């Protein structure tokens, strides 16, 4: 993958890519940790509570406390579990989430200033690997991400885990269809699979945003994104009220934490895709152009928390009904109409 | 430099692994897995040939192989479930009721 990248963009060096990868890993991990804090705070505010307040000012150091707790907790592996798979599963979730982020433009291009020894003057690209099929790659990696919960549930010799794994397979497989089909209509309009082309297509301002042309696709993508990131209205994989904790029942410590980091990284990925594909993305010319996309990503992230505070869960049969009888026909009809419009 | 032969050798090795699996396994699910291994080996060969001859036909065939694998899994899983309902096992030796 890196070979094609180096061929495509001559000014990008391997060092720059590695720096970018490290930045993504570090920053997104930190944001994922911070996301838990934001989620608690927002949910608390919406329930007129204060949320975490004790550790640090306004509870800001709660992340550190959580991290210490997760790292020092006993790492329990059940006796009858398939130990190797049990240990690998959370890594799959986290790894696929971060690999998906590698082809998403998250941070701006920048050049490391000259005064820093060794790395001075290195160009760090905005996308770690600028595949010209970026969107499909992200969707594919998120599809591969279903193995985390699936293997976790199947390896732990626990009936709740098996139910969680079955729900993983059903939910992710079904909603991948909706994600792909809903994003197909914008792809047809733009005629490219690259995030950069999407961004350039909508560069003319708010009026040219994809939302106005493809409102149905936008809504469908959001719904499917909620299902793919296992967020609340479709939080059936680890729904405490039904299956104790679903696939994560037997997990503790940092292995459980890795599921969490993966989930939050996936939330960020879905937010970034929604922001770039539907809400105009970033503005490469303006100096503060990157602030706009961060605001958009923040809006989608907040929307996920907001929805969690407001809406109830659905039943698994309702979830399948929604996917196959409502969303998928809508997506197909949307594609058909878009195709007719594009052709005519 | 990596040439076409490298890819073809890897593909052949993987194909023979799949073949060994098909010959060796008795469990129906494992047989399906071995079949997938063979299909993937062929896919690698097609993609490599397509790359080194600068021709898209290989990739086209790889797509169709993936489509075939997808339909295989749909029908195969149906058969798997029916057999499991009927016999309570997926072992081919248990399923051979016509041996007389």
């Amino acid at each position, binding site marked *: 993958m890196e070979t094609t990248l180096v061929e495509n963009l001559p000014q990008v060096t391997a060092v720059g890519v590695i720096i970018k990868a490290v930045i993504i890993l570090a920053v997104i991990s930190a944001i994922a940790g911070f996301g838990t804090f934001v989620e608690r705070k927002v949910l608390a505010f*919406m*329930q007129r509570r204060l949320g975490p307040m004790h550790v640090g000012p306004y509870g800001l150091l709660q992340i550190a406390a959580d991290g210490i707790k997760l790292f020092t907790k006993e790492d329990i592996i059940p006796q009858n579990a398939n130990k190797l798979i049990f240990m690998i599963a959370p890594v799959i979730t986290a790894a696929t989430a971060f690999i998906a982020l590698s082809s998403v433009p998250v941070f701006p291009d920048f050049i490391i200033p000259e005064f820093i020894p060794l790395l001075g003057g290195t160009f760090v690209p905005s996308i770690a690997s600028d595949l010209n099929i970026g969107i499909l790659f992200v969707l594919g990696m998120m599809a591969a991400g279903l193995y985390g919960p699936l293997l976790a549930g199947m390896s732990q010799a626990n009936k709740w885990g098996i139910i969680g794994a079955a729900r993983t397979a059903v939910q992710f497989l079904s909603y991948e269809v909706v994600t792909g089909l809903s994003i197909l209509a914008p792809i047809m309009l733009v005629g490219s699979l690259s995030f950069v082309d999407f961004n350039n297509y909508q560069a003319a301002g708010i009026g040219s945003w994809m939302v106005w042309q493809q409102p149905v696709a936008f809504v469908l993508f959001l719904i499917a994104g909620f299902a793919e990131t296992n967020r609340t209205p479709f939080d059936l994989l680890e729904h405490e009220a039904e299956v104790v904790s679903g696939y994560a029942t037997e997990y503790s410590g940092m292995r459980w934490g890795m599921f969490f980091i993966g989930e939050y990284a996936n939330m960020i990925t879905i937010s970034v895709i929604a922001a770039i594909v539907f809400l105009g993305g970033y503005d490469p010319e303006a100096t503060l152009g990157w602030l706009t996309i961060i605001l958009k990503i923040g809006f989608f992230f907040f929307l996920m928390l*907001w929805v969690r505070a*407001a809406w109830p869960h659905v039943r698994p049969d309702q979830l399948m009904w929604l996917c196959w009888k409502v969303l998928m026909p809508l997506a197909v009809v949307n594609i058909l109409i878009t195709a007719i419009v594009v052709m005519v | 430099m990596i040439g076409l032969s490298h890819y073809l050798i890897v593909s052949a090795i993987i194909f023979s692994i799949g073949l060994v699996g098909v010959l060796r396994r008795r469990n129906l699910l494992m047989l399906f897995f071995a079949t997938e291994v063979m299909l993937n080996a062929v896919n690698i060969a097609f993609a490599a040939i397509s790359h080194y001859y600068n021709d898209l036909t290989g990739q086209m065939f790889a797509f169709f192989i993936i489509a075939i694998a997808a339909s295989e899994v749909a029908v195969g899983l149906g058969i798997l479930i029916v057999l499991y309902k009927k016999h309570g096992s997926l072992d081919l030796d248990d399923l051979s009721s016509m041996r007389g």
Partner: protein
Amino acid sequence: MSLEQFKNRNVGTQNYKTLDLGQSPTSGMGKFTQVIKRSVKGELFVGLWVTIREMFNALFRGNMHTVKYPFEKLPISPRYRAIHDMLRLLESGSYRCIGCGLCEKICISNCISMDTRYDENQRKEVSEYTINFGRCIFCGYCAEVCPELAIVHGPRYENASEQRASFSLFEDMLTPIDKLNLQQEYDGFGAVSPNADENIKQTPLAY
């Protein structure tokens, strides 16, 4: 509130409201129209609006409902029945308990134990008085039966302690002598209520 209202245990016959959910549709078309109706009616957006409204109310209008408990405590009812307080006489500062033993007798969980003796002035004094808070059910009978209003229920409801001896001794429950000025007369369950005079019916002199 009259006594009858307290004694009425027929919860089912009280005026509860029953929700009129209507008939759930059985036909496919009916289900479809129900989904369409519910989607178009925007009930989901009402939910979103309510949560965001509560968030803004909480953040900017001071409607936050959190009580940071160990640091701030809600005022509790004066008639709350928590850990007992032994009161002192305001005039002399000596404790009110006369050692009659009524509380020990009436205690239904048998958790009060007391011992008395005569001191050098031939006055009865309480030599030992403990309440086993592991057994106490905080029924309030002891406070109600006390003729001297010596034992009352105080507002101290944090019962956790490192040792159970730490708050069950007489001296611990007794109002500290230096805080005598803070002792309130109407302080807990079993004390005379402020409108006691109005409630007392005069016994006719003929009896």
